């Protein structure tokens, strides 16, 4: 088990985050790495049946338990709906990674109740990451893309 080593710094950092945010538990998973730190009552949260996989994976943004897991600079969904990367089927994507965007520029379309809602960029910057795929359902607060 030599290869299995613990990043003490990370534990300390998360412990500090617990302090700072007043949370009881932080769980963090990236690929096959997973860490969970808890304080006091935190451990008893598992006393409820384990969450079943939701149709839409619970994004940290929708779980106040772990707000820090939303990437910095992420633009999140302002409503529940279906997200489209292009203004119409078959058209070119509105933005792609690496694009420079201006404030107010339309980044994506979110369809809710048969209405197409353009998602305007909250600020100018460069698209670093796009987390959704065309036609994917999104829930409120789900991170869609990252602008730096």
């Amino acid at each position, binding site marked *: 088990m030599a290869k299995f080593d613990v990043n003490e710094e990370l534990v300390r950092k998360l412990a500090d985050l617990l302090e700072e945010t007043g949370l009881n538990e932080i769980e963090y998973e990236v690929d096959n790495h997973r860490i969970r730190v808890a304080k006091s*009552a935190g*451990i*008893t*949260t598992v006393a*409820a049946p384990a969450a*079943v996989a939701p149709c839409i994976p619970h994004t940290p943004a*929708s779980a*106040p338990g772990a707000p820090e897991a939303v990437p910095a600079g992420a633009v999140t969904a302002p409503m529940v709906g*279906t997200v489209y990367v292009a203004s119409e089927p078959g058209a070119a994507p509105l933005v792609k990674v690496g694009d420079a965007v201006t404030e107010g520029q339309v980044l994506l379309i979110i369809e809710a*109740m048969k209405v197409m809602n353009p998602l305007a960029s909250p600020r100018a910057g460069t698209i670093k990451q796009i987390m959704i795929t065309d036609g994917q359902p999104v829930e409120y607060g789900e991170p869609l893309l990252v602008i730096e």
Partner: protein
Amino acid sequence: MFDKILIANRGEIALRIHRACREMGIQTVAVHSTADADAMHVRLADESVCIGPAPSRDSYLNIPAILSAATITGADAIHPGVGFLSENADFASMVEEHGMVFIGPSPEHISIMGDKVVAKKTAQDLGIPVVPGSDGAVTSAEEARATADAVGYPVLIKASAGGGGRGMKVANNNAEVEDAYRLARSEAKAAFGNDEVYMERYLSRPRHIEVQLLADGQGGAIHLGERDCSLQRRHQKLLEEALSPALNAAEREAIGKRVTDAMRDLGYRSAGTIEFLYEDGEFFFIEMNTRLQVEHPISEAITGVDLVREQIRVAAGLPLDLEQSDISFSGHAIECRINAENPETFMPSPGLVTDYHAPGGLGVRVDSGLYAGYRIPSTYDSLIAKLIVHGQTRNECLMRLRRALEEFVIVGVDTSIPLHQRLIGAQDFINGDYDIHWLEKFVAGQT
């Protein structure tokens, strides 16, 4: 039958609905605000969708978000639960317009019963007793006497322009009515510069008694007996019991038949409750709730009928497979509404539940979304658990309730459990001798 139901509610009632669906082999979609991401029903549901931030108007009252969630998850019906959108006729219509089933009555019936005046008129036309009174103003002592004879004593003579008790007189008999009438008029004149008065039956110490109904809109309609919900504080029910200690079997059958006939005539579909004021053997219509009610489990306890299951079945267009003759009442049931609030000051007490242990054993049912480590949000109402206890007799039920309250452990927040414990020890309550004013006096230490 439905394949997938979206539960447009939160807390214990959302969990209640999830359980019924699960037991019918129906998939569930939980919609929740960011504040409820860790809620029990969200953890248990087959699917869950975050529909908005904590404030109800942005989440549980957010019709577009809920309908979008239903669309993207492919739900074929929506259960509105209790409160929130459960009595919103527009929401019911929109659900249907989106090709989904609203688990409740028709939008028309929701509207009718949602308007106090229309509701009272409709009830009257359906033969449901309402508080008798004069049709508008009473203009002479003779008319006052005649009206009183028709309405029955005691009568209340009220200033049309009135309020705050002024220009308000009670006449207990024939001898008092004419003087009371004149006094009321002159007081009204003095107080409001308008001496017009009207009359209605005066109820001094009524009980709140409601009848649970179940109808399929296809001619099938039954009642599950009554619930006595007289124990209220600021119009919030604290403890309910079924059957009512105040009714006998004949009264029960009579009022039950009256309202089931009425619902059949109305063509009502789904579960519903008609609330009455009850005094001296007479019932007076207050309102009809066209939805499930928080206290429905006590009716389930004494009849064995799963109300949510039946509600879902009739919403799916199935006829009721129960007739009145299938319903018998066994034993006695009491529900305690356990709130996260200070038992003396009634200050809400949200926060982290560090420890939770529900009572168990014979005749004890707990409906609650609480668990150790759950944080009760401050955004919503303070109902955190319902303790429902059933016994062969009212006394056995009371003893069992006392035992169950002793075992209930909720640490980290204040709860109303100590108040419930005091309440069930009160002699008036033990005797079943209380009206809608009793609890207010009790908490004020005046009983």
